[in-house]
C-alpha cells in the first residue's frame, strides 16, 4: 500500500480483556517498529522486527505484551489482560532501510 495502515483506529477494552492491534506496513519494507505513546508524552519504543525476526523486544513493558510478524509483512501487537495503564496510542512504523521511517496513524486504546 501507499502508507502504513493500522487498525482499528480506536479500541475500547474492558479491564482484563485481550486486544489485538494490526499493522500493515508499506510493501517491501523490511523493518517494522511498534511504539507506545501515553497521553501528553513522546512515543516510546516497544519492539523491532527485521522481516519475521523480532530482533529487539526490550521495550515491551510486561509479559502481557506480545508482538508477531509471522510472514515478514503484517504485524500484530497483542495485549493480554489489559489494564488501565495500557491506555495509550500505539504507533507502528516501517522502513526499507536506514532511517527512513514511515509511521501509521496509530491505534488509540482506552481501557475502562
Amino acid at each position: 500500500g501507499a502508507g502504513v495502515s493500522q487498525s482499528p483506529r480506536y479500541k475500547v477494552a474492558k479491564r482484563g480483556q485481550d486486544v489485538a492491534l494490526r499493522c500493515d506496513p508499506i510493501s517491501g519494507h523490511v523493518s517494522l517498529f511498534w511504539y507506545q505513546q501515553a497521553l501528553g508524552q513522546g512515543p516510546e519504543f516497544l519492539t523491532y522486527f527485521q522481516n519475521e525476526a523480532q530482533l529487539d523486544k526490550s521495550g515491551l513493558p510486561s509479559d502481557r505484551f506480545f508482538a508477531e510478524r509471522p510472514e515478514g509483512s503484517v504485524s500484530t501487537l497483542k495485549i493480554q489482560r489489559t489494564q488501565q495503564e495500557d491506555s495509550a496510542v500505539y504507533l507502528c512504523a516501517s522502513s526499507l532501510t536506514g532511517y527512513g521511517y514511515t509511521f501509521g496513524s496509530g491505534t488509540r486504546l482506552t481501557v475502562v
Partner: protein
Amino acid sequence: AQTVTQSQPEMSVQEAETVTLSCTYDTSESNYYLFWYKQPPSRQMILVIRQEAYKQQNATENRFSVNFQKAAKSFSLKISDSQLGDTAMYFCAFMKPSFGGSNYKLTFGKGTLLTVNP
C-alpha cells in the same frame, strides 16, 4: 542510555513570523542521527528534518532549518514564515544506528505543542 529533553511544553507564534523550538540530548555516542517530527491531530508522525551528527552543516528543508551544536548537545528547530498548517506537536528524536548501519529505534522527547495564530 540516551535522553532527549524538550523544555518548552507549549509555544505560540503569529502567522508569517519565525519561531524556534529547543531540544537538548544526552549521549556518549559520536555517530548518531537527530530528527524533528511533526504530529498533527491525525496522530501520524511526519518527518520534518533530519541531521547526521558527522555533518557540520546544519540541515535545511524549505522553511525549516536546524541549529545543531554537537559539543553542546543541542538541536533546535527554526520555522520561518509560520503557516496555520504548522500547528501541531513537534517531537525531537535521537537515533543511534545499529552495527552495520541498519536503522534502529528512536528516542523521543516529550514534545512541544506549537500553535500558529492568524
